[in-house]
């Protein structure tokens, strides 16, 4: 079927938030902290500016609670007495002229009495660095299975390895942007966002308003990747505060440097593995320590950590596991949600560790994985028994076949012997990704989806899940039209407007199709049942709807469904035991690289990504998700490096923060295996994040095969490889 918004995007007709014209509106801008930590002594407004022309907002103008509603209430909407990171918002300005307001930002000086900042998350903070609790630890989680210490003591071989991954910027095409206006006694905020009800909750708390006096509308969103999960709550509060004080519409659009410097990124990670194995390579014990840099405020770090830890043992069976992880404070711009949500970091580490184990045992890394991959009936680190009918060995074998892995190894031996400057290598990773919220998250969300029939027989789907380029509008249309036997044109997807759509949860965690799609199916069934004949479909259904409206003047025919957990699942948050996710998707990735020993540049020559994601509902969209995720992971592995100074990104422009272009990635070969998941829409499991988990360790393994170096830290830039490779 045709992509719903495809033509309007192709023709440039889609109106993103900055394209929406404003009558009588003001432009908003943000004055930020120049300092990573300290007390605000003074905010000095230059006498050269006529401040009467400006709307000026600071923390005293906040009608509700001065914090951004999320897991903890530590992050202020606007700094009051002190700052904890460079670029922390302190004052907001608005003016009729965009140029004037941006110029005025430079005429406000935030003077900070500095305190010593904590900048390296890997080191324990000094006494004068403590800013959260007694130890700066935002969250500490331990997953325990079996007896790790005893198993390590008994293991014939214990192998240690330490791994690090860097921050990553989302680089969504559309920067963060919002408009706010006042409609009667309702504050309306419209903008680029993933989670309308997160923004709604943040506004009710921060503005101290009743739920029905705050309205949030999503505008067409040019990419999110998690970057528009929690940050839009901050921007929504800012733009709403300005609009309330101005009594006029206000628009705030970040430019690229501001967006890159001031908004969230993927958590940097430090991970240490101690693995006990027997001489055949069987995993006996996995002891894993994980530290994530949380940045200056808690934001989503505890849940990012949680997902990271659950994936930290990899898709392998091991009887004795201890995964001990912390997310810690630094005086850096807060880190946040990013596609994969902690799992790409921990999977990078465990996959590199598997390669290290193979090397130390003199084993083939493929066979080591084959031996240890979870079999049907075995359990994960949290004790979740995997019984999903998926064949993880077949996923591995398909990737080996499709990539001609063995043939490539032989071919590379010949190629490398014949070349002075060039080296080729191939690397592999196997991985998994849990779809939907972790543990009891989906139960807690208790999502609701609705469908509403229109008098002409069409069906409108109402959810708070949004399109951001990944295909929500199309796949929801497909799900509703297929479950009702209607044409795609008979399905309308409602704008994500909190005045109209129920809370079906955020558009995150690979949950949209698997969880919300299922609710749409059930809501459709609920609607049809109200017509008295559950078998009605297609033209008959349409006619029945038209007839219903003729009889029920003024009525509304609708259907709804609320989330229910799959039967037989259980999760204990305190002990971190049980069924962490309704389902895991499984993947294997093979990457071939060529390294130029004279420049130490790495080119990716071939990528094969094979995955088992339950049933594939729309192959074109699914392939797009895999390919896009692979590209993002290649960028993270090879070139995307955030450079920091005082906890702020200083290469915050696209001329020196490099993302891959189409010339940097080969055609990505994608294949699917299908083992339908009983509780997902049409058998589907989540797909959005899985593809980001596998490529980075496979890239590093391929570089290792090519050069004999052991990349443990990404990105593997030429400089970093030069340090590892002496003979350049």
């Amino acid at each position, binding site marked *: 079927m045709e992509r719903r918004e495809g033509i309007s995007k192709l023709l440039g007709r889609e109106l993103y938030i900055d394209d929406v014209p404003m009558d009588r509106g003001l432009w908003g801008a943000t004055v930020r902290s120049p300092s990573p930590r300290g007390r605000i002594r003074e905010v000095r407004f230059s006498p050269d500016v006529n401040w009467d022309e400006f709307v000026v907002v600071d923390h005293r103008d906040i009608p509700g609670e001065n914090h951004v509603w999320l897991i903890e209430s530590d992050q202020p909407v606007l700094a009051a007495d002190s700052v904890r990171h460079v670029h922390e918002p302190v004052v907001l300005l608005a003016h009729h002229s965009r140029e004037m307001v941006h110029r005025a930002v430079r005429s406000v000086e935030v003077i900070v009495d500095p305190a010593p900042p904590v900048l390296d998350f890997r080191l324990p903070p000094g006494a004068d660095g403590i800013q959260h609790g007694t130890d700066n630890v935002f969250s500490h989680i331990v997953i325990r299975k079996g007896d790790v210490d005893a198993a390590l003591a008994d293991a014939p071989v214990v192998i240690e390895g330490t791994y690090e991954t860097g921050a990553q910027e989302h680089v969504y095409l559309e920067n963060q942007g919002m408009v706010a206006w006042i409609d009667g006694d309702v504050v309306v905020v419209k903008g680029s966002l993933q989670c309308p009800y997160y923004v709604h909750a943040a506004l009710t708390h921060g503005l101290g308003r009743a739920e029905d006096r705050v309205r949030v509308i999503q505008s067409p969103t040019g990419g999110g990747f998690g970057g528009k999960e929690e940050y839009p709550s901050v921007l929504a509060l800012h733009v709403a505060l300005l609009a309330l004080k101005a009594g006029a519409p206000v628009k705030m659009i970040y430019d690229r440097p501001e967006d890159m410097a001031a908004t969230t990124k993927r958590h940097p990670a430090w991970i240490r593995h101690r693995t006990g194995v027997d001489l055949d390579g069987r995993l006996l014990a996995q002891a894993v320590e994980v530290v994530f840099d949380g940045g200056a405020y808690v934001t989503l770090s505890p849940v990012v950590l949680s997902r990271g830890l659950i994936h930290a043992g990899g898709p392998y069976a091991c009887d004795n596991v201890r995964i001990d992880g912390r997310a810690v404070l630094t005086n850096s711009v807060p880190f946040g949600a990013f596609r994969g949500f902690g799992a790409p970091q921990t999977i990078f580490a465990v996959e590199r560790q598997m390669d290290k184990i193979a090397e130390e045992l003199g084993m083939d890394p493929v066979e080591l994985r084959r031996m240890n991959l979870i079999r049907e009936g075995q359990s994960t680190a949290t004790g979740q028994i995997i019984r999903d009918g998926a064949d993880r060995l077949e996923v591995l074998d398909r990737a080996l076949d499709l990539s001609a892995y063995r043939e490539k190894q032989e071919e590379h031996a010949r190629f490398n012997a014949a070349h002075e400057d060039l080296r080729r290598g191939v690397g592999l990773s196997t991985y998994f990704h849990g779809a939907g919220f972790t543990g009891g998250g989906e139960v807690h969300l208790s999502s609701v989806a609705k469908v509403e029939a229109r008098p002409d027989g069409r069906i409108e789907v109402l959810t708070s899940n949004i399109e951001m380029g990944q295909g929500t509008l199309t796949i929801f249309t497909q799900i509703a039209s297929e479950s009702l036997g209607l044409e795609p044109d008979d399905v309308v997807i409602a704008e994500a407007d909190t005045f109209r759509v129920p809370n079906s949860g955020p558009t995150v965690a690979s949950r949209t199709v698997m969880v919300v799609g299922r609710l749409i199916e059930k809501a459709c069934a609920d609607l049809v049942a109200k017509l008295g004949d559950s078998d009605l479909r297609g033209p008959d259904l349409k006619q029945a709807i038209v007839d219903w409206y003729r009889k029920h003047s003024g009525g509304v025919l609708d259907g709804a469904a609320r989330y229910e957990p799959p039967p037989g699942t259980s999760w204990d948050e305190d002990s971190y035991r049980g069924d962490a996710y309704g389902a895991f998707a499984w993947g294997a990735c093979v990457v071939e690289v060529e390294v130029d020993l004279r420049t130490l540049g790495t080119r990716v020559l071939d990528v094969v990504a094979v995955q088992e994601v339950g049933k594939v509902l729309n192959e074109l969209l699914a392939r797009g998700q895999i390919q896009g995720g692979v590209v993002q992971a290649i960028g993270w592995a090879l070139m995307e490096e955030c450079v920091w100074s005082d906890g702020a990104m200083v290469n915050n*422009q696209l001329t020196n923060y490099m993302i*891959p272009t*189409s010339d940097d990635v080969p055609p990505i070969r994608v294949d699917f295996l299908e083992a339908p998941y009983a509780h997902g829409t049409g058998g589907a499991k989540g797909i959005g994040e899985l593809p980001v988990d596998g490529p980075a360790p496979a890239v590093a393994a391929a570089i290792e095969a090519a050069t004999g170096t052991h990349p443990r830290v990404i990105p593997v830039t030429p400089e970093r490889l030069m340090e590892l490779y002496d003979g350049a």
Partner: protein
Amino acid sequence: MAVIRDMMPAFELFRPVSVDDALQLMARHGEAAWALAGGLDTFDWLKDRIKRPEAVIDLGAISEMRGITADRGGLTIGAMTTLTEVATSPEVVESFSLLSMAAFHVATPQIRNQGTIGGNVAQDTRCWYYRGGWPCYRAGGNICYAAAPKAMNREHCILGAKRCVAVNPSDTAPALIALDAQMVIRSAGGERVVAAEDFFMSPAVDITRMTVLEPDELLTEIRIPETWSRARFYFEKVRDRQSWDFSLVTVASAMRMSGGRVQDARIVVNGVAPRPVRVTEAESVLIGSPANESIGLAAGEAAIRRAKPLRHNDFKRPLMRNLIRRAIRGQEA
């Protein structure tokens, strides 16, 4: 951070159809004039509101400045010829493929379709402190932010820095120097011809300019002499990704062989100094020797002997050495 984007300050726009008219306008507006070619360097400056010219003179309608003509075994290339035209011209590809390769390495197809060879050689530096509007030496201030102790200077100079450590970003410039091209410069007062090697300005001479062009002058055409026609060429540009990226180090070379030995050679690097540099140290090692791996290495070592890396760009030394070595030996099959 505080730079204002997406809006241009107001200016008067002129669109002359002849070089003479353009030169009259340049003379009339002097320092307030801004010559616009493909616009790729210009619009960044204007949108960022860092440069605020009063009169923008769009050269796009001057047909006499565009095109490639064969000329006594050499070529004359109008300054407004697009990079795509240069890269794909049969005359260039046949006799001076070095220039074709260089033009082909600029940015992206879209940018090559719009960008001109004149603009490519005359463009300003990409030092991001300077481009970000910081009041550095080059912008008339009294500090170089890129050389400060905590500065980010991975992309900057290892050679020839004088207060400013920014590098020349042009991909075609080193090729033109290797080919001994002549730059034809006109003003209302007349014409002068400068060797490509002398066209680029050292900050030791004038820190605010990248080229010898005076405010009232235009680069109108580039003449490539027959001298290096169909010589042995080598071009390699190392960058962080394969497209849409400025050079970290580039080498462009032309060699004439005779009896298995190098009879004459010009080796030029860019991305390492404020101006593209002809590496005479390497050339003198090379001339009279066979073009092999060990001579290449010796020439490369000679070339970097005077290099002084900054905090974050020590990698450019082995990179420059290795590229010169490879230029001499040639690419592996």
